[in-house]
């Protein structure tokens, strides 16, 4: 039994409504520091909404209302005084499909550092190389950094998006079913990267692939119909789930 770790993200009484329809109902959970937390649940359970609250991308939806708190390093993300660009800089996002920016491989990685004020050519070169290595893409692209990002395979694009996210120096990696568009080899590559990065970053991964959660997760959050049903260390949730819905999901009765 691993020792309980410190909390990095503290979610308190978080509720989200889309045009009056509830999507998240009063969710409270502590997400541990520098661990992989898997958010599990069937489609439409609110797991993506939950993830999008953590970097406030949920704001971009028409007619959304959010109540509750999300504390990161003690700062409430939904405080009206909170600066959203500052919050997002702390978090890298991987989406279901890679969305490279319409620029070269190099510029994709340099985009974040540049908007945050880095203009020194040597520093940028070093940042780009370091983060492409961190994402395990450097050896495949080092000879063609000026090529369009879209010249990469989809699996490489997802690793490019990882490098791009890491290059702004986040503490947290948010991943929304990051392997769902990838072939098995690329998926394994991404999962491998997550395992390497888990000591340095707090990783929150939304997935509906139970086996992926088993492979990766240190901590599990199970959601159903907008409610948080159960959460705890992975071993506990998988081996001895307390709630009926969790048991049914894990045994495959619901999916």
């Amino acid at each position, binding site marked *: 039994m691993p020792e309980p770790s410190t909390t990095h993200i503290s979610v308190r009484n978080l509720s989200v409504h889309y045009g009056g329809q509830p999507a998240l109902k009063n969710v409270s959970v502590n997400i541990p520091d520098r661990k992989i937390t898997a958010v599990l649940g069937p489609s439409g359970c609110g797991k993506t909404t939950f993830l999008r609250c953590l*970097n406030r*991308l949920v704001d*971009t939806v*028409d007619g959304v209302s959010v109540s509750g708190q999300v504390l990161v390093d003690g700062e409430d993300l939904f405080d009206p005084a909170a600066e959203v*660009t*500052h919050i*997002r*800089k702390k*978090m*890298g*996002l991987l*989406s279901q*499909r890679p*969305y*490279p*920016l*319409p*620029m*070269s491989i190099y510029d994709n990685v340099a*985009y*974040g550092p540049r*908007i*945050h004020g880095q203009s020194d050519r040597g520093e940028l070169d070093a940042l780009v190389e370091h983060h492409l290595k961190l994402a395990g893409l450097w050896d495949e692209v080092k000879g063609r950094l000026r090529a*369009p*990002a*879209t010249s990469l395979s989809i699996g490489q694009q997802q690793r490019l*998006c990882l490098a*791009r*996210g890491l290059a*702004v120096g986040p503490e947290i990696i948010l991943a929304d079913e990051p392997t769902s568009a990838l072939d098995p080899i690329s998926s394994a590559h991404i999962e491998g990267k997550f395992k390497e990065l888990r000591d340095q970053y707090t990783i929150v991964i939304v997935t509906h692939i139970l086996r992926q959660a088993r492979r990766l997760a240190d901590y599990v959050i199970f959601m159903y119909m907008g409610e948080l049903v159960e959460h705890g260390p992975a071993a506990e949730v998988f081996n001895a789930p307390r709630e009926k819905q969790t048991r049914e999901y894990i045994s495959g009765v619901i999916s």
Partner: protein
Amino acid sequence: MNRRSAEESIFKGLMGLSFLAILAALATIVGTVVWKGLPAMNWDMLTKTPSGGFYLGGSGGVLNAIVGSLYLAGGATVASSCLALPIVLGLNVYARRASRLVTFTRFSMDVLAGVPSIVFGAVGYVLMVALGLKASLLAGIIAVALLILPIMIKAMDEVVRLVPQEMAEASAALGATRLETAFLVVARQALPGLATAVLIAFGRGVGDAASVLFTAGFTDNIPDSLMSPAATLPLAVFFQLGSNLPEVQERAYAAALILMAMILIVSLVTRELSRRLSRHNVR
């Protein structure tokens, strides 16, 4: 089964006929202009301004109208680009997707794009008088800018709407402001389409006669300031076509030939430009 294959044949025949009709229309227009205009076409037409008796068959050319049209359409294109880009990025990056303002703006653009250009000419004239201007390059630029603005906005809006929301989110997730996302990512992804929109609007502006009829005036000289009147190719065609001298009428077709060649060049440049600009595009 027989009936269905007959339907298929009939529709194929219909498609073929429509295709031919379009080709025939194009061939007729180009053919007529070339056939009637080419005899009057010479180097002087392109390089000289009209001499005293030009409209009675005297020597000279339509350089005044060529330069006037380029100034006018160029100025109007720059002016309306300065308004169109912020509006389109505002609609697609800043405003809430289904807000009333967005819906109303798009509806207004649809309406304005359908307003006949003579109405823009008349409104431009009223505006010109209200501003205390005379018929001049500036007044013409204002009228043409009003005419092509909705066309440009619609064309830009269509391409910017196609930029995936997730791409803008990827930029936002890195801590970019909306302005950075709008210009560095959304506008960049839409760049080939934006360039096309600008040049479509230019093509529309350069070829329009009615909007400049009252506003730009007409002169044999090349305009030397924003306040001087400016000749335009469509009006040069219009005035010369009204003559009863055959050689002057021929010159009208030659002027039309020049106008068509200009639009053709602009179209070719557009295609090449958007091909080059799309190198980094995400498809």
